[in-house]
């Protein structure tokens, strides 16, 4: 299954886990699975319309990903605050 890597404060919302294995074939599906498994993350990465928040970057391995980006079981997703925020 794909692995999602989280940094604080998201890792704290995921029960202190910095890596979470989740099912899903796209970035959106994996992040929705994260919300189901760790409900406290709901609304932090995806907004109420299911879009990745403007100042959050989701990388699939080393490439920028979008909601529709395909994810394979061996992929690692990194959720990182964008430098455009703050």
């Amino acid at each position: 299954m794909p692995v999602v890597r989280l940094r604080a404060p998201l890792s704290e919302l995921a029960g202190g886990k910095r890596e979470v294995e989740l099912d899903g074939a796209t970035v959106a599906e994996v992040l929705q699975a994260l919300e189901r498994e760790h409900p406290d993350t709901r609304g932090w990465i995806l907004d109420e319309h299911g879009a990745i928040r403007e100042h959050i970057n989701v990388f699939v391995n080393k490439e920028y990903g979008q909601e529709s980006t395909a994810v394979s079981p061996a992929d690692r997703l990194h959720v990182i605050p964008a430098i455009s925020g703050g």
Partner: protein
Amino acid sequence: MTQLLVGTKKGLFVLEGDAGGQFAITSRAFAGEPVEFATRDSRNGRYLACVTSAFYGPKVFYTDDLSAEWQQAAGLELPEDAEKPLERLWTIVPAEEDDHLYAGGAPGVLFESHDAGASWELNKAFWEQPTRPDWSPGAGGMCMHSIATWPGDPKRVALAISAVGVWLTEDGGRTWRHGNKGLYPRYMPEEAREDTIDLCVHNMHRSPTKPERLFIQFHGGVYRSDDAGETWTSIADGLPSDFGFPMVIDPGDPDSAYVIPLVADLDRTTPEGKVRVYETRDAGASWTARGDGLPSEDAYLTILRQAFCGEGSGPSMELYFGATSGDVFGSGDAGKSWFTAATNLPPVHSVRAA
């Protein structure tokens, strides 16, 4: 008497005073408009200001006399086929030849003037960089904020952009290449750090007495280069945080740099509620906190990238910085002690000694 040009969210304020005391506001211009940056070209005395009207867009204005009208400069626009218009102008820097100036702006653009700032032309070689479609902005936009000329050699220039790293030219701006080796972006996944060009430089300065030496305040990192920007070495050990925006050097001491650390990218305020400037005089091997006279309790300030400047050199070097709180602080002894120069201004974008 020192004259300060303080660009704020609500206009340009000209302050005058002597180091150690309260400065007086002697004039104001562009009332109500964001002034991103203002400077005075010491070669001819001309004042130049970057003004970004929320209604009318970014403009450069100039005047040779603060009591006279400011004139609008011409030519600060992008080609018609550009996806977006010019967003903002972040800096104006005198070049090595008379009446030659550089201006940097967003989205990652370089302009040049050969008539002391009255008219400008886009540097097309930089505008046409083939990787431009992949460039990413920082929080302030894709701003070219630092332009480091090389004293005595007009062909060598270094640029820094948030967030497209360092760029170098040795032919007067006809060709450009990256100068990013050693910069370490923690905000990228580990496996993407080696090759990325998404490098968020916050400020860059070149030593005029040792031009191959440059310093960078990065988006999480402080670096030094001893080879004209080809490679960079971390010098952040000893700082309470390696995050911050502005930087100043003593032009007479190539081993000097001053930074104002903020907590981190997620908390862009002065650490522990204390405002402190950190100084190195050994090229970053060690840092000394300089806070005597600065707020030391319950002070959570943000100092932006153009809001810190120096004037002169050596033990009597003057330093000034402004915060988004509207306070301006100064030192007349190279940072050993500080005084409050002004309070209750609008949020400060830039500070330069005229």
